[in-house]
């Protein structure tokens, strides 16, 4: 009885090893990648006592190195990517990066003690890997965050983040397409709105820095 059960277990295990090693390796790599990314973000970008400029610079480095920005930009602009001129495409990628950096870097200032726990890792049909995680926070409800990870020649890259089920790429696509529409279908209108937004975000963090230096709390 025992022998038979052991045999069956061994057979099942070896079958699993034969059929799934590729997936398992890719899954494990994606899981490690996300855990490491969250770790690095918490130790470098969320570090206490950084100046706003320094925090922004650190976030930008992390963001550019670990996110597939050109691909995300293409995804976000959707059908408008094709009607955009190469110059507009280049501008868009740059402006999109800036907006993300200025909106996200500031958030890390308030983070402390957040920990990421991977809940599941699943390979998608298109070869991307979806890593579902939960970010635990002190005295606040945990946040569910899903990461779409794609293999890139130089390593793994994040393609999209889902916060509580809402895809950031899809949200931006919907938003940007609405802006393009209201400017008569012109990509230039979106780029102008983005430049304006970035100036506004920069001005805000500048005033925040000034008021922060006069009033420490």
């Amino acid at each position, binding site marked *: 009885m025992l022998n038979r059960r052991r045999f069956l277990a061994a057979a099942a295990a070896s079958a699993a090893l034969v059929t799934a090693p590729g997936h398992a390796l890719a899954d494990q790599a994606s899981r490690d990648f996300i855990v490491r990314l969250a770790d690095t973000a918490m130790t470098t970008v969320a570090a206490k006592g950084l100046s706003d400029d320094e925090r922004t610079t650190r976030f930008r480095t992390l963001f550019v190195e670990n996110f597939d920005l050109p691909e995300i930009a293409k995804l976000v602009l959707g*059908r408008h990517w094709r009607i955009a001129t190469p110059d507009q495409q280049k501008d868009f990628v740059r402006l999109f990066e800036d907006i993300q950096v200025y909106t996200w870097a500031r958030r890390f200032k308030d983070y402390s003690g957040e920990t990421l726990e991977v809940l599941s890792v699943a390979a998608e049909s298109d070869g991307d890997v979806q890593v579902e995680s939960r970010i635990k926070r002190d005295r606040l409800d945990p946040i569910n965050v899903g990461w779409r990870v794609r293999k890139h020649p130089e390593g793994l890259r994040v393609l999209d983040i889902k916060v509580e089920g809402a*895809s950031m790429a899809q949200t931006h696509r919907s938003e940007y397409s609405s802006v393009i529409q209201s400017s008569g279908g012109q990509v230039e209108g979106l780029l102008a709105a983005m430049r304006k937004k970035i100036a506004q975000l920069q001005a805000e963090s500048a005033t925040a820095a000034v008021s922060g230096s006069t009033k420490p709390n």
Partner: protein
Amino acid sequence: MPTFIPRAALTRIAVSLLSLTLVAGCATPPPADDKESVAEFEQLNDPLEPMNRAIFEFNQVVDRAMLKPLAQGYRAVVPPFGRERVRDFLNNLRSPVIFANDLLQGEPDRAVQTAMRFAFNTGFGAVGLFDIAASGGIPYHDEDFGQTFAVWGIGEGPYLVFPILGPSNPRDFVGLAAEWLVDPLNLHLDHVGQDWAIWTRTGMYGIDKRERYLDKLNEIERGSLDYYASLRSLYRQIRTTEVKNGTVDLRAKPEAEKR
């Protein structure tokens, strides 16, 4: 005579919405030969966009003048401990509605969880002020009639922004109205003529919700080029996730994952 007449209020809202539609008109669909534009138009699911945007602007004004300051005041005055008690209490009051929806969605396990939570928290958690069931391993989950209708296969209909209530759609709005009408506590309070308690509860629910969203909404508005479009997309995506009980599925996974 009870003064709580939600049916009349609903009719009034419906009539004013209809007249707003007539005034504001519909979004112009793109020409049929532009397939990608048509696909996008359908994907946005917002044929009443001009009306929705008008109501959204109105809501923004009300929010800035009243709701947001109220929520900020609530946060400033009541310490986190107190706000948690309020939230646990309000969540516990929702239990009968959640229980009914668990059952209607064919989720007996979740219905049992809700019933047990209600019994524990009401009995041992100081009438629901303390969510002791959550610390005991039965976490809170929310359900509503809009989600139940979705589980039954009823489509969401076009995106709608309601005055004060904000982003919604016909399905979720009917769900909200159903909840308002069948909530046993509200029915009881109405029956005994204590309508003030219904409005107090509704008001507290609104302030608690707005307080919870203070930072999130600030961040979204701050980073958005088109706040309306961002919220529209977020609302629809998050509702879809809620219908699939996304968060709960995820909670269940770590167990299954152990190899």
